[in-house]
C-alpha cells in the first residue's frame, strides 16, 4: 500500500452518498424485493400450493437458497478470523466486506427457512416444542449464535471508525450523526479501550471458527442424517464447509471489485489483494473439487441400484446440464482463470467470482432437489407433477427477493459505514512507514 496521509485515508474511506448508479442499483433491488414480498403474500394467503413443492420434492429452491446463504456467510470466519489468527495482514481491508456479507447472508438464511414453512405462525413451536435430538434445533441454535458473533465481530473493529465519522458532523446528516453517536459516542481512543477491543476481537476470532464450522456442518447433517441417495454420506460436513469457503471467497472477489471501482478504492483494494484472494480461491476450488470427486466417484464406482437413477440423472440425465454447468462454473473455469497471474487481475477475478457464486447456487440446488426426486422406494400412483420439480414464479420471486434483500443490506451498510476499516488502515500505513 502506498504511503498516504491520515486525512487522505479518512476522506477516501468515509461512506459516500449514492450516486446515480447507486440509486438505480438500490431501486432495482427494492423492486425485486417488492415482487418477492408480493409473491410471499400470495404464498401466505394461498399456502404452499402456489409453489411446486409436493410430497417428493418438499425442499426446493428455498432450501437451496438457505444452504447457499449459510455457505456464503462462512467467509466472515475465513477472512476475519482464520487470516487474522494466522497473522496475515493483507486481508485487513477485506475484513469488513467479509463480515457484512456474513451478517446479511446469515440473516437471510434464517428468514428463508421461515419462508419455506407452510405455517410460519408456528415458528415459535421450534423453541417451545423442539427436540434437542433434532439437527433442525441444532441449526436454529447455531445460526442464532453465529449471527450474534458476526455482529460483534463487525461492531468491535467499527468503534474507532465511529469516532472518526462522528467528527464529520456536517457531512453526515442528522440521522446518521445520531446513529453514529448512539453506536460509538463513548469511544475516546483510550489505550484501555483499545486493549479491551483487541482482546475481544481475538476472543471472537477464536470463537467464530468452531461456530462457523458448526453452522455448515449442522446444515449438512440436515441432509446426511437422513437415508437418501446422494445424502447418505459420512463426509458431508467437510464437503459442505469446503464448498462454503469457496463461495464465500468468490463473493468477496465480487464485492472487492464492485467497491473498488464504485468508490474508487484502487489504493486500498489493490491488484495485490486480487492476486492473493485469487490464489485463495484457487486453493479452495481445488479442495472443493477434491471433495466433489470423492462424493461422486465413490458411489458412481459402486453404482448401487438404488443410487443409480440419482447419479445418472446428474451425470447424463435431466439434471446433467445444471450439474456440469455447476461443476464447471464454480470450480473448473475459475481455477483455469485464477491459476494464471493475468487471471488474478481485478476484471478477470471479478468474472471468476461471479462464476463461482452463480455455479455454487446451482450446486446447492443439485444437492437438495434431485435426491428428493429419486427416493429409494419407487414412486407409485402419484400425480405426474409430483415426479418433477419446476419452481413456480412465486418461488423464483421469493428466492430472488431474498438475494436482493441480502445485497440491499450490504449496500446500505456500505452507505452508512466505511466498507474498509479506517482506523486499522491508518495504523497499518503508519507501521508500514515506520518499517
Amino acid at each position, binding site marked *: 500500500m502506498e504511503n498516504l496521509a491520515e486525512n487522505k485515508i479518512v476522506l477516501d474511506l468515509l461512506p459516500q452518498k449514492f450516486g446515480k448508479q447507486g440509486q438505480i442499483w438500490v431501486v432495482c433491488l427494492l423492486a425485486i424485493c417488492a415482487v418477492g414480498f408480493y409473491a410471499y403474500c400470495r404464498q401466505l394467503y394461498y399456502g404452499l400450493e402456489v409453489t411446486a413443492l409436493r410430497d417428493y420434492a418438499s425442499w426446493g429452491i428455498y432450501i437451496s437458497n438457505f444452504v447457499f446463504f449459510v455457505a456464503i456467510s462462512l467467509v466472515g470466519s475465513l477472512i476475519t478470523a482464520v487470516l487474522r489468527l494466522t497473522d496475515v495482514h493483507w486481508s485487513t481491508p477485506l475484513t469488513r466486506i467479509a463480515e457484512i456479507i456474513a451478517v446479511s447472508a446469515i440473516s437471510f438464511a434464517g428468514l428463508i427457512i421461515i419462508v419455506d414453512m407452510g405455517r410460519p405462525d408456528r415458528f415459535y413451536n421450534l423453541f417451545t416444542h423442539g427436540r434437542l435430538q433434532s439437527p433442525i434445533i441444532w441449526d436454529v441454535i447455531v445460526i442464532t449464535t453465529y449471527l450474534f458473533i458476526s455482529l460483534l465481530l463487525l461492531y468491535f473493529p467499527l468503534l474507532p471508525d465511529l469516532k472518526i465519522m462522528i467528527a464529520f458532523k456536517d457531512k453526515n446528516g442528522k440521522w446518521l450523526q445520531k446513529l453514529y453517536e448512539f453506536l460509538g459516542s*463513548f469511544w*475516546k481512543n483510550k489505550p484501555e479501550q483499545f486493549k479491551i477491543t483487541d482482546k475481544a476481537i481475538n476472543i471472537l476470532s477464536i470463537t467464530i471458527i468452531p461456530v462457523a464450522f458448526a453452522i455448515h456442518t449442522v446444515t449438512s447433517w440436515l441432509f446426511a442424517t437422513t437415508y437418501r441417495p446422494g445424502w447418505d454420506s459420512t463426509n458431508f460436513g467437510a464437503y459442505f464447509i469446503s464448498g462454503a469457503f469457496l463461495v464465500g471467497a468468490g463473493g468477496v472477489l465480487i464485492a472487492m471489485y464492485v467497491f473498488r471501482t464504485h468508490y474508487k478504492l484502487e489504493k486500498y483494494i489493490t491488484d495485490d489483494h486480487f492476486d492473493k484472494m485469487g490464489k485463495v480461491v484457487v486453493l479452495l476450488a481445488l479442495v472443493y473439487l477434491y471433495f466433489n470427486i470423492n462424493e461422486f466417484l465413490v458411489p458412481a464406482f459402486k453404482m448401487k441400484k438404488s443410487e443409480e437413477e440419482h447419479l445418472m440423472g446428474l451425470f447424463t440425465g435431466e439434471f446433467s446440464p445444471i450439474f456440469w454447468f455447476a461443476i464447471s462454473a464454480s470450480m473448473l473455469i475459475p481455477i483455469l482463470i485464477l491459476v494464471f497471474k493475468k487471471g488474478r487481475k481485478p476484471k478477470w477475478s471479478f468474472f471468476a467470482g461471479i462464476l463461482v457464486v452463480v455455479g455454487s447456487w446451482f450446486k446447492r440446488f443439485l444437492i437438495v432437489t434431485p435426491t428428493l426426486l429419486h427416493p429409494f422406494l419407487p414412486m407409485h400412483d402419484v400425480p405426474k407433477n409430483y415426479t418433477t420439480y419446476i419452481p413456480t414464479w412465486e418461488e423464483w420471486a421469493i428466492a430472488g427477493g431474498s438475494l436482493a434483500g441480502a445485497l440491499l443490506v450490504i449496500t446500505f451498510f456500505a452507505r452508512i459505514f466505511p466498507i474498509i476499516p479506517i482506523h486499522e488502515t491508518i495504523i497499518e500505513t503508519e507501521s508500514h512507514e515506520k518499517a
Partner: protein
Amino acid sequence: MKKHKIIQILLLIIALSPSILMAQAVEKNSLSLNLKYFNDNNITHHLLVQAKSKIDGKFQTIPNITIQFYIGTEADKRNLLGKRVTNDRGEAIIEIPPTAKDAWLKSPNQNFLVVSTATKQFEAGQGDLAITKAKLKIDTAEGKMITAKMVALVDTIWKPIAAVDVIVGVKRLGGILNANETQTFPTDSATGGVIAEFKRDSIPGDQNGNITIIATVADNDKYGNLSSEMQVPWGKKSLYMTNFDHRTLFARRGHSPIWLELLAYTIVIAVWSIIIFLLFQIKKIKKLGFE
C-alpha cells in the same frame, strides 16, 4: 349404376364395421363362483365365495359382484341367507344366520347355493356346495399333548370319522405353526382322533404365557373347513417392553440422552457465556469513555 351400388355396399360395410367391432368388445365374460363352507370352533358357521373370470387368458378375481347366498338347492326367497358384494380379492363372506336354523337341522347333509345376476361385463353366475355336517374338537392330554377328535353326523348320531387329515399347531399372526415336525395327522378309525406332541416350548405367549393351539381341517371335499382352538399356558411369558419413557436419540422431546444434553448444553452455555462476556466488555468500554 353398378358402380354406385358397389360404393353403397362398401359404405354400408364401413359404417357397420365399428358396431360389429363394438358388439365383439362388449361380449360378456362368464363368471365362476367358488363356494366354501367354514365351521369356526363349532360355534359359528360361515360361507365364503370367490368370484373369478377368465380375462385375457388368465383367471382373475372379480370385485364388486353382488352375490346371493341360499341354503338348500333352490334360489328361493325363503332360502335366502343374505346378499354380499365381493371385495378387492373377489371374495364375499356371510355368516349362516340363526334364522336358517330350521333348514339347517333338517338333514345331516347340507346344500348351499350362490347366485350372481348378470352385469354389464359379466354373465350371471352360479355355484353350489354339498357338505356333511361335522365337528372337530381340540383338547389337551398329559405331557403337553394336543388331541383332536373329528365326528360327523350320520342320521341323528355323531360318529367318529377316520382318515381325515388334521393340521395341529399354534395359532400365530398370519398362519398356523405346526405343533411338531409333522405337517398333518390322519384321524384314526376307532375314535376319529389325532394326538400331536407339542414341541414349541420356547414360543412366546401373552403376559401369562398363554398361546392358542388349533386343530383344523382344510378344504375337505366332504366336510368343508373345520377348525377348533383353545388357549393353553404353554408359551413363554412376554413382558410388556417399551422404551417410550427411555432417553434415546429417537425419543420425544425432553427425553434426549443425558450425554447429548450435557454436551449440547455445555457447548451452548460456553459459547453464550463468551457472547455475554463480550457484551459486558462493551459496557466496560462505554464506562471508560465516559470517565
